[in-house]
């Protein structure tokens, strides 16, 4: 049984435009998007190579890009195996930080008392320069994974907690009222309204944490581990093996970029409905 009269034209037009993909050249855009950064990178590298050769800069002061690439190729197994160790520690620490961050964020949102008692400690823990406490971790936890993991947590917990709290508090009070009127229990309110509302903010927090976690792992390795990319770096620098140090930094940077991309991909999967993802949603899926 239909309404009988036709829908107002404005409504139909709005609905239609929301369903059709925006005018994008898809693959063309992607190529253009990559072309200029690649070109810029190539020019920069060529300049660097030229300067090093021209001024005969000693390899232990500044290696040429060609030298760094050679080192990466020659030692790719060593670099990747150490990267794997760092990644493992970063990943484990990140999981711990996210679990802890979500729980603490939820507790802080739920209780003013918890907020008042816990937040000062969190702020202090965040404010302390991590490089200062790293040697302490070594003394408390010894060399190895456990020190690294706690270090990663120290680096990453704060963005997760702050973003969780902000997200949970941004839940629409009228939506909460509405589900309460439907008879929702506090747990249902949390699961069905507060947590989904908080998800965009939580994702932002986790994206930040994802980029900070490897940094935390590497710095932790400088001081408190005898394995991993951080350890490799500190030995390379100490031994004046600058090409290896640069190679490690390069590998680490590429890894960081890949991680960021991965985090963004994850975000797209989790938040297809969010304004930030709508263009991609229309371009990609369509309903």
């Amino acid at each position: 049984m239909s309404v009988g009269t036709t829908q107002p034209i404005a409504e139909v037009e709005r609905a239609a435009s929301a369903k059709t993909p925006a005018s994008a050249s898809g693959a063309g855009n992607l190529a253009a998007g990559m072309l200029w950064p690649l070109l810029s990178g190539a020019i920069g590298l060529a300049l660097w190579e030229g300067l090093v050769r021209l001024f005969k800069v000693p390899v232990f002061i500044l290696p040429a890009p060609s030298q760094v690439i050679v080192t990466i190729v020659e030692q790719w197994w060593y670099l990747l195996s150490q990267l794997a160790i760092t990644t493992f520690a970063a990943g484990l620490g990140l999981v711990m930080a996210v679990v802890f961050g979500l729980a603490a964020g939820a507790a802080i949102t739920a209780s003013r008392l918890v907020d008042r008692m816990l937040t000062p400690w969190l702020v202090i823990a965040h404010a302390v320069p991590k490089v200062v406490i790293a040697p302490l971790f070594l003394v408390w936890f010894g060399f190895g994974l456990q020190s690294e993991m706690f270090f990663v947590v120290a680096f990453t917990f704060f963005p997760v907690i702050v973003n969780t709290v902000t997200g949970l508090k941004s839940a629409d009070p009228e939506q909460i009222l509405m589900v309460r009127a439907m008879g929702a229990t506090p747990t249902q309110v949390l699961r069905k309204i507060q947590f989904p509302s908080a998800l965009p903010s939580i994702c932002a927090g986790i994206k930040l944490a994802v980029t900070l976690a490897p940094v935390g792992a590497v710095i932790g390795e400088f001081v408190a581990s005898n394995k991993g990319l951080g350890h490799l770096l500190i030995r390379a620098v100490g031994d004046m093996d600058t090409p290896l140090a640069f190679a490690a930094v390069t590998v680490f940077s590429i890894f960081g970029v890949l991680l960021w991309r991965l985090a963004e991909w994850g975000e797209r999967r989790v938040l297809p409905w969010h304004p930030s993802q709508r263009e991609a949603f229309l371009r990609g899926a369509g309903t």
Partner: protein
Amino acid sequence: MIAADQSLARSNGRGVSASISLKNVEKVYGGPSGDLHAIAPLSIELPAGEAVSIVGPSGCGKSTLMRLIAGLDAPTRGEIRVGHQVVAKPVPDIGIVFQRDLLLDWRKVLGNVLLPAEIKGLSGLEGRARELLQEFDVGAFTDSYPWQLSGGMRQRVAIARALLTRPALLFLDEPFSALDALTRDQMNVLLQRVQTSEGVTTLLITHSITEAIFCADRVLVMSGRPGAIMDDIRVPFERPRRLAIRETAEFTSIGRRIREHFEKVGVLVG
């Protein structure tokens, strides 16, 4: 309280709706500058299945009255009954449509309509959800996200959601105020048709005199501070109604009667 399973025991779309009874209901808010009488002692009987509009200016207490009946707030004095049971806590079997559609951005349209079933732990309502969406002319958007719909369509989804569990009462608090005038007219037609087919006791709060008359069997005219019912007008038109009836003499005379009330109390000057 109307049990959930009872409200589901309907085979033809019509079923158990509840009556509403208010006896000497008063709401007073205590404040630093003295008491605020939101609602003066008010008594009224609304039989089951009836469609009632409450029309009045802002702040006259109509929203407060709706909250009291729904059990979301308690009266200072007096007794409220829904379906012969005293209201002491939030009445579970009400579908509410607010001025904002309050659809959840992260759920598709179908998921939004099914929300009350999830909260109440009821299963097997997916078929009804799809039917309602189809009936309200938004079936094509069942798997879309709310942001892909226009304001009018979103409110239709909200109404479908309110009706999903076949509630005993349907409350609408200025549901169409945020829509443009043409869409609003469309929604009026939709609402009175829905009310007829579902047979649910309906309470519509509105600013619009025309809307109040068109969508109801009975119009309660409220004035504010303290909130009181100035008039209780029966609307004689048959269902289903067409927009054209708004231009009839009978319709305009009811409208005039209401308007004169507002002029008398100074709400309208004209």
